[in-house]
């Protein structure tokens, strides 16, 4: 299954991945800030570990992004769990979330210029 990756390294030819999670060009999305603030991979990308072939799990509409931006406590997880593909939000997500929002200093940014410039 990983032969294309090995071949790419061997032959020094880049792999051309087909983009699944793409935002339109008028959105300037920074991935690193989400990862470093406790937004887990599976929160936005869905159950990646169980996808034999990747599909887009979320609508990626602005409304979908705003749901989390408006209430990050519903979706944030501890930084240590960000890369855990099997993470399930605990029953006290809201309580944990509120604590993490304070601890990680998560701003619920809803300015247009956060993403659109």
């Amino acid at each position, binding site marked *: 299954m990983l032969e294309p990756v090995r071949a790419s390294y061997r032959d020094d030819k880049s*792999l*051309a*991945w087909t*983009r699944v999670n793409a935002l339109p060009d008028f959105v300037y999305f920074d991935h690193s800030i989400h990862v*470093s603030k406790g937004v887990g991979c599976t929160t936005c990308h869905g159950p990646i570990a169980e996808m034999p072939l990747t599909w887009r799990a979320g609508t990626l509409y602005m409304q979908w992004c705003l749901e989390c931006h408006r209430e990050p406590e519903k979706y944030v997880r501890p930084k240590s769990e960000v890369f855990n593909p099997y993470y399930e939000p605990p029953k006290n997500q809201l309580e944990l979330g509120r604590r993490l929002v304070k601890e990680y200093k998560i701003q619920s940014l809803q*300015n247009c210029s956060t993403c*659109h410039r």
Partner: protein
Amino acid sequence: MTDNSNSNYSMNETIDLAAVRAKLAKDGGKRFWQSLDELAETPGYRYKLENEFPENTEKEAEGIDRRGILKLMAASAAMAGLSACTKLPTEKIVPYVRPPEEIIPGKPLFYATSMTQSGVATGLLVESHMGRPTKIEGNPEHPGSLGGTDVFNQASILTLYDPDRSQTVIHEGRIESWAAFLTAIGNMRSQIAPRGTGLRILTETVTSPSLAAQIRDVLKQFPDAKWHQYEPCIRDAAHDGAVTAFGKPVTAVYHLDKADVIVSLDADFLTTGPGHTRYARDFSSRRAIEGPGTKLNRLYVVECTPTSTGSMADHRRAMRASEVEAFTRQLATEFGIASAGAPENSTSSVPPAWMMALVRDLEKHRGSCVVIPGEGQPAIVHALAHAMNASLGNAGKTVTYTEPIEANPVNQMNSLRELVKDMNAGAVELLVMLGGNPVYDAPADFEFGPTLLKAKLRVHSGLYYDETAELCHWHVPEAHFLEAWSDARAYDGTIGIVQPLIAPLYQGRSAHELVAAIAGDAGKSGHDLVQGYWKSQRPEKDKAFEAFWQKSLHDGVMAGTALPAISVSPRTDIGREPASPALDKDALEIVYRPDPTIGDGRYSNNGWLQETPKTITRLTWDNAALVSVNTAVRLKLRHGQYMKLKVAGREVYAGVFADPGHPDNSITLHLGYGRRRAGNVGNGQGFNAYFLRTSGAPWMAGGLQLEDSGKKYYFAVQQYHYMMEEDGHPADTESVNAFRRDLIQVATVEEFQKDPNFARHPETEPGKKLSLYPGFKSEGYAWGMSIDLNRCIGCNACVVACVSENNIAVVGKDQVMRGRAMQWIRIDTYFRGNLETPEMYFEPLPCMQCENAPCEVVCPVGATTHSIEGLNEMTYNRCVGTRYCSNNCPYKVRRFNFFLYSDFKTPSLYGMRNPNVTVRSRGVMEKCTYCVQRINAAKIRSEEEDRQIRDGEIVTACQSACPAEAIVFGSINDPKSRVSKLKAQSRDYSLLDDLNTKPRTTYLARVRNPNPEIRE
């Protein structure tokens, strides 16, 4: 040329100058004005004032018919793509297998390099996105920059990606390969062997030690060969002046931070000449005001055409260029420098009281004053300036001297003259021209074009296949400085390495590689040549040299290479040199000067520079025959009249431009225009002053005659665009309030000390409670900007930097005439006083980012909103183009894309654009965003590092480019930030504050420092 008389009205005969003068006199000379038409309140002016975007619907359709429009729209619709709500086109992600070191896609890297102008280097930091240079900043470590840049530095990135650049080696009109060229060079070398008889190398000014060493090696190999240097903006007067004064050429280095009094003898030292970026920094540092007690510097300027430096003057006298020598001699005599005396019919118009006040001021500041001579003046003025500086004890303090920074200091006019003589004598077998465009810009009396054809074999290397390349057998595309290795000296001699940011886009070769080929060393790369030279020169060896080289590359300077100051003293009998004959009082003089935005013509094809409004006149896309109002009246000239200029049997057509502040009986025609082979952007723009310029009179000539052609020329002038109205206060009201609400606030030091709050008007400032909306408590960051009008020199570096950073489109002359130029920041010029010698002030105007923004409430689709941190945001994808926001903006800072101005098609320009800023399509409004992309990047960085943003971490493009540090950006919620401290000053005021817009961009009023003894 379409008749857009509504959008570019000219000074028509119905302007009653007498009434205008009476109006100016009545206000005690205190009224600010922007143009003659404003003062005369012509119908054309009122129309422009009330209609930001003038109605011209029928005329707009000229040239585009209905079918054409539909065709264009169809093509664009096909390109416009799908909306976000449906399936996006399939994208591929292609990662590196082995990434280049340090590149993180999305995060830019900065590399230090240097750009040379007339050989003199300014250090730069170039922002590079994934291997593509996209933005130029100044290098804070480089003495010639200290972080500032000028318009040419900023615009050079566009020249790099210019699709009109020369892309291949061309041999007699046909494409050839570099290998074929090398073979030909090999043949040429054997033909001129053994002594190199007939080999001539023509370069521009060379300060590069490594290139000079290479050329000298060639000269050693071929003893009969000669090295000539020439470029149109020669510094021969400085060279010869130094030889006259000191017996040998030296470089004068000015230390303006130490100067209390500066006298400029027609020297535009703030924007032209070696070190001008540094001089702007040093000069403006002495205008930074802490409080009423700060001691400001004082600038006297004597000049022959209005310039930035003249605008900053506390005392300015406009006189014909030929009269400056008489003035200089008169001044020198006062300091005991015996003079041959001014010629009998000298017309130095300076009143004795003024002269004596100046002399006393200089005497009072011995050792802390400086006299700076201008390049456009003859050598004697330079020599006398050196003598005066020595006599005043300035030498070693405000001016120091070093060995010449040029590698081969010569009188360049003589150098070219010698080459022309040799060519005419048939003595030139092989002529190699490294850069430069002498067929276009050599003095007209040399007739360089026809003479060039007498050289048997001609090789030219240049960025463009220009007028000179056309006449050569071989043309080699030159590598842009961002693509090549080299080195160069700054104004004080400091060496900076020029390192490439990108491999040559078009197989360009640097001068180093070309000279190596001539020397028989064709295989060596530019890097090896330059590094090899330094390996041979430096004491460090092996690992130590590696460390030294890496550090020099990293810093952009070679530490400790500033040339040491030498001690020279001038001859005592300089003044006895015979004076130049003076011009008759009514005779017309013509003055040639490098253009403020095009230079000597090499940047003609740079759209950003063509569209940048020139300082003071705010003219774009053309040069003009600048003339004073009085002279225009006397000669019955109208603004825009298309005249034939005749000097010594040569002639050129030019449009007349009435320029307040220009001296009488003189016409300025800037160099660099009227080109034939500049490229698609530059061809045919403006009028070619090189047709008139001769080797005997390169900067000024008498005997100018004008002849009417009967035609009219239309200029694209931005002074008439985006004007702010001051409603409700008729101009002739006696009340002081009528002009105290002015947009520019100026006071003298005396007035400032008496009333430190002169810029504040409590009677017009709205109370804090005056708002329909509840107050907003801003926590966290609150972005604000402070622009110090006392420091701004009007150089336009901020304008071009903003264009570069924000992917702003060039719209072309026709659209500029309709008031549709897209630059987000503009520099308004304000005059005060009479038409002959007005004071001139600059006011940079970006978006005010109003807290109560009038533009936000009127957008029907919510495309412009307010962020929590105080930014007035612009969301292009929501904008439908009603233009209501720009209608409501009192500052007129919004720009609308009437057409698809951005070039979506040219592939080379894709590389130039800043990937962090949207490239706007037609139909959307845009405006200054406080460089929100930089703000967001800093916020993300700081959040990831779990800290607050430090003051000074976010630097907007305009702030970064400004050589004078006039613009400061930061968080006003932080009382310790620089911007908060500046806004707390009493000089701080905002524009149109009675409208209660609460702008976050505020200004610090200008404080002039006139000599109390001079009452003008």
